[in-house]
């Protein structure tokens, strides 16, 4: 009898352990591009304009993690594959990359020239959008733990829907920072647009179902 219970318990334990291990791995893998790009930067292997390359790489990785985070739900809806257990990790990676991107701009590029930075925020739409996106990410990151989920209950989900605004602002931020219309920012913008449109479609369908008379 005892043996059977043990056998029954063991897979459950190892499953939880497996997710914890996978999450930890995801963090390590997720931080690898940042470690790599900083390593290249500090060993002067980032080419002619390492400051800008560093900023751009960190910014693009922020967008990539943000997009991956936003893909979790559609992926589950459309294929049944649920990565929901990793969504928080992906969201937090997004925040950490945004923090590194922001810090690089503040410290390495502008060397805390607060006057120039303040002027940028007020006068430069791409900086305004970038700062807005980062400012919203902060409370989302702070509330990304079990304790806050329990404490905020319904408000938590509402709060975290602001990530849609973050995604839109980040995609526009990238479009505005380049000259003309090169391909990469347009591709990122399109992906974000599709992911947001998916949410909007889902929301509208749900509302119609709930109130058929209104239609």
């Amino acid at each position, binding site marked *: 009898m005892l043996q059977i219970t043990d056998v029954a318990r063991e897979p459950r334990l190892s499953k939880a352990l497996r997710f914890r291990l996978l999450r930890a791995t995801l963090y390590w893998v997720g931080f690898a591009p940042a470690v790599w790009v900083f390593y290249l930067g500090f060993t002067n292997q980032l080419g002619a304009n390492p400051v800008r390359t560093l900023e751009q790489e960190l910014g693009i990785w922020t967008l990539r993690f943000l997009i991956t985070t936003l893909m979790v739900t559609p992926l589950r809806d459309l294929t049944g594959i649920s990565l929901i257990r990793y969504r928080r990790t992906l969201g937090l990676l997004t925040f950490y990359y945004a923090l590194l991107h922001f810090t690089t701009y503040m410290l390495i590029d502008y*060397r805390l020239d607060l006057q120039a930075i303040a002027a940028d925020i007020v006068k430069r739409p791409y900086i305004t959008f970038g700062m807005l996106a980062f400012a919203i990410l902060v409370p989302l990151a702070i509330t990304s733990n079990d304790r806050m989920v329990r404490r905020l209950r319904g408000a938590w989900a509402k709060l975290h829907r602001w990530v849609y605004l973050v995604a839109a602002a980040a995609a526009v931020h990238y479009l505005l920072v380049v000259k003309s219309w090169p391909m990469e920012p347009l591709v990122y913008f399109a992906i974000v647009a599709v992911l947001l449109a998916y949410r909007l479609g889902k929301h509208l369908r749900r509302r119609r179902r709930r109130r058929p008379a209104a239609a």
Partner: protein
Amino acid sequence: MLISHAPLIRPSEITPRDVYLNRRSLMLGAAAAGLSAAMAPRGAEAAQLEASPSPLSTDEEPTALEHITNYNNYYEFGTGKEDPAKNAHTLTTKPWSVKVDGLVSRPAEFDLEDLLKPVTLEERIYRLRCVEGWSMVIPWVGFPLSEVLNRVEPLGSAKFVAFETVMRPDEMPGLRAFFNVLDWPYVEGLRLDEAMHPLTILTVGLYGETLPNQNGAPIRLVVPWKYGFKSIKSIVRITLTEEQPPTSWSKQNPREYGFYSNVNPEVDHPRWSQATELPIGQGIFAKRKPTLLFNGYADQVAQLYAGMDLTKFY
């Protein structure tokens, strides 16, 4: 003959020594080691050029050749900064001819050799300020544009000079892109007095050798007091006109890029500040420096714009 056999000390021999002795290079010891390791090979066809020094050169330390040849905006070869270095080798630069026409008494189509025969090449070490907020110091080899213009004898009615870059989709991957970043061919323009100014040069080399393709081989314009995009590359046509000619970036976005595009820290690009610039090639701790009016050439060129509202004529 462009090949030098005289025991002349070429700029290419002097500059690396300057770089070597430079304090910053010593401070960034590791950086300097990285540079030489990553030094890109020049094209096999790069030839030495004889050039005399010019009093119009700056005494600032030139940016490393590796950076000048690997950080380029030449959208015909891609929009990435390293795309031109990767892709521009496909451009055929021999033979090359430049058509000079429009409001001139003696229009002509010059073979590059003929164009260069009567001129004395000079080394002009100029600052370059990109509209994107970065800068370099580049030892160009060239000669005043005015020498070519004088040869074709501009008519009294000529007020502007229009320039055109070669357009060869089969040699330029950027022209085959799914989405056109600019309306090709690339065109630029100057007012005739700007074009005749002694600082305005046609350039055929850098660091004492013929231009690498990514830098606008075989012949390009350099106008050091204007943002870099005015200095049109791989020129095939120069036309004198009465009307102000269209220019590529102001066609693409007239609100952001004007015809003049003089470097001016007081007139911001609508989307970013032009007050400071990031010098290229100084590693991750490069310090922004203030941008100067007319890129530091105000003493020589400010009189060209006397009485003009530079915020209106940007």
